[in-house]
């Protein structure tokens, strides 16, 4: 592992983000607007709901929203770090350099971690000021939960990059669409029990399901559901491995079939 290579990938993305107003808006703006949206919905719903459920409702919905946003951001920042190279037709320079795939992935991970942490430490005080939502009430459980959110974002980022490598730049839309496909099945805003029994079994393979179900139990019952945390972590570790293998396989296929040069031609 050459950390200069990793730093090079990281540095290239930091330069882009820090001076691009649209990128800064994508980092802080969208989540702020969405917080307003979900906050107002929550405030309205709590006026028509039972009074003893008010606090839980704000905690449940807005916490779920914030962590889902972190998951999306983790996936998006990872994928966009690669797409930037495709969009600027620099991708050939990257793959013809001595940077290893693991170094490339680690560089994107660092970009994702920094962006997600910045967004998290930006949005949680705003949620507290506007809606009295103290997400830190979850205690130390927040750390493994946050880590799992980040990791599964990277996994989907690797899948998105692999698909772009395989199908060309026109597949970049997938980078923004993949998390949305998982949203209904991840039990983000409702418990797993609302799923039909078959779907409950199928969704067991989704780390997001365990993360958000676990988070909900922690908020409503005040206990840390270790089984959810353990399953989310185990599944994530398996998916990190599979995601890396998938990306490696797509790159090998691209080198065999000549898809890499297509990334600067489409």
């Amino acid at each position: 592992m050459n950390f200069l290579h990793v730093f090079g990938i990281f540095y290239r993305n930091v330069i882009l983000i820090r001076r691009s107003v649209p990128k800064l808006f994508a980092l802080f703006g969208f989540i702020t607007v969405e917080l307003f949206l979900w906050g107002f919905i929550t405030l309205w719903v709590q006026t028509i709901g039972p009074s003893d459920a008010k606090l839980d409702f704000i905690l449940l919905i807005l916490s779920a929203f914030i962590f889902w946003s972190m998951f999306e951001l983790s996936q998006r920042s990872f994928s966009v770090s690669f797409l930037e190279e495709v969009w600027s037709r620099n991708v050939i320079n990257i793959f013809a350099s001595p940077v290893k795939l693991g170094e490339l992935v680690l560089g994107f991970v660092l970009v994702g971690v920094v962006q997600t942490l910045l967004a998290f430490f930006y949005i949680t005080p705003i949620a507290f000021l506007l809606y009295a939502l103290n997400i830190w009430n979850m205690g130390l459980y927040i750390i493994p939960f946050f880590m799992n959110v980040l990791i599964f974002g990277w996994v989907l980022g690797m899948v998105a990059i692999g698909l772009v490598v395989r199908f060309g730049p026109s597949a970049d839309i997938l980078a923004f669409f993949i998390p949305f496909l998982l949203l209904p099945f991840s039990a983000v805003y409702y418990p797993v029990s609302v799923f039909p029994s078959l779907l409950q079994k199928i969704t067991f393979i989704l780390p997001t399901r365990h993360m958000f179900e676990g988070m909900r139990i922690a908020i409503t019952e005040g206990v840390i559901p270790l089984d959810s945390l353990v399953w989310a972590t185990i599944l994530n570790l398996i998916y990190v491995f599979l995601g890396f293998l998938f990306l490696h396989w797509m790159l090998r296929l691209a080198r065999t079939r000549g898809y890499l040069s297509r990334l600067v031609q489409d």
Partner: protein
Amino acid sequence: MTTILRVREVTKQYGNLTAVDRASFEIEEGEIVSLLGPNGAGKTTIIQMLLTLVSPTSGDIQIFGKTLKDHREELLSMMNFTAPYSLLPYNLTVKEALTVFSLLYGVQHYRERVSLLIYEFDLGQLADKKVGQLSSGEQMRIGIAKAFVNSPRFLLLDEPTASLDPIIARVLRAKILKLVRKAGGAILWTSHNMREIEQVSDRIIFLSRGQIVADDSPENLKNSFGQEDLEEIFISIGKEPVNRPS
């Protein structure tokens, strides 16, 4: 003399299409070898195989005596390239782009290296401009400077002077040759500018339909083809492929 590149019986097939057909050649230390041929002859495929962007269907590529497939990162850190189809990031300044590539090539003292390149390639006035704001000729100059970030011993130049005016092209050619000879390296060069090829090349490899059809010095090639200049050889090869030498 050290052999820098050894290509043995390399073939690249895309389905039924044979882009490169059993190509074999070597490049020795200090040599500047040009790869010539009509469009679709396989020049870019060969360069992309040397850069590991495309993997050969069969055959073996050795650089500095090591198999490229097994020592990819180590060998790529001693090589570099520039090509018109591979632009530098348009949203970085020249200085930033050179810094990023110095890091990607693992250059330890990257700040000093970037300053030296800016001086060597006379990029002072462009250093703080974004790459995307530069003319295609200026971008080509930056691309050549990028190819020297790691002081490569083996350089692949795919039409490096295509967008440059003749004065700058001449200056850059001289600089490229000086820097590579100083490093004790070698160059594989492609261009459609026959005069340039004749000036810089120790040897020329002609490709046609994926096959190497000639490999010799410019003078010997002119004698053996009975032509006065390389352009005539190029045209005759493009029109009617020569049988592959046994």
